């Protein structure tokens, strides 16, 4: 005997999804097909367990997958910027595409979409934030920091600091110190 079947894919997808969401005690609202709004805070483990249980049905959480790649890019950037040997001298684009095994244009588009900034700007932001910490906490000179962070010259770092924050490194240092003085006076 042969049976001929007809599938309502939309219905199947929705029923599977509802069953799995209920099985994981997730309170939700379906906003559109393929779009679920979780109504309560969900832990990373809960989400992962849910993710695992729907994978077998060929259902994947897209937003989360994007966030995972973005996090990997960020981790790789931190490794590149803050590595103690500071000898990673290849270009950011080459380093990232080799590390994550994806084309740089794919990574860079995804990154901008999720974080609202570019990879280039993110790298600069991280370097400048680290410079601030070194200036204040470790009281390193800008020359020492430029060397530590692999800048070609102290002038380059100084210019990038000013371009990013709108103030010079020395003004930054002065302001933070004055703030501390005010606080200890009170």
């Amino acid at each position, binding site marked *: 005997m042969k049976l001929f079947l007809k599938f309502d894919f939309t219905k199947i997808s929705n029923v599977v999804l509802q069953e799995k969401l209920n099985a994981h005690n997730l309170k939700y609202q379906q906003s559109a097909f393929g779009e679920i709004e979780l109504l309560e805070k969900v832990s990373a483990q809960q989400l992962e367990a849910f993710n695992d249980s729907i994978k077998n049905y060929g259902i994947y959480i897209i937003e989360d997958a994007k966030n995972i790649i973005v996090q990997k890019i*960020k981790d790789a950037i931190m490794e590149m910027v803050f590595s103690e040997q500071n000898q990673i001298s290849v270009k950011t684009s080459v380093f990232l595409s080799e590390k994550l095994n994806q084309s740089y244009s794919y990574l860079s588009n995804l990154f901008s979409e999720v974080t*609202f900034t570019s990879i280039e700007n993110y790298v600069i932001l991280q370097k400048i*934030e680290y410079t601030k910490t070194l200036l204040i906490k470790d009281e390193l000179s800008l020359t020492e920091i430029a060397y530590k962070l692999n800048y070609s010259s102290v002038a380059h770092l100084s210019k990038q600091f000013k371009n990013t924050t709108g*103030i010079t490194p020395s003004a930054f240092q002065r*302001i*933070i110190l*004055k703030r501390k003085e*005010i606080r200890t006076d009170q």
Partner: protein
Amino acid sequence: MNKEYINIALADDDEDDILFFTEAFEELRIKNKVSTFKDGIELMIYLEKLEGELPDLLFLDLNMPKKSGMECLEEIKANRKFKDLIIAIYSTSSSEEDVENTFVLGANIYIKKPNNFEKLKKVLSEVVTTNWQYHTNSLNKENFLLRL
């Protein structure tokens, strides 16, 4: 999970300015909620009474009648409840001394207000985006200084 929008408060006595700012916010890619106040007194009453979610980012006009942006800044900085609030001060003109003094008193951002809408949009976009980076990457807010 991270929340997906930024909560903005804005205090300005000029209705046109409020209109320009809110229009600029509407065009941003980062989703946002905006509450507006017509002077410093109205703002401070709101903040003091607030028990729920505080704004993430506050825009303060430096020159307002009754209570100036500077007075609001000092009151906010004196209250631990508002320690996570990022404050952006803006003014049409500014001396170096004013800018530095504002930062020393605890402002994070100083904006010299541009005189056309396109530039204003660009500046506000940069402020909100930078603030978003601090927020989503847990950067040290004590070191958040931005002058535009």
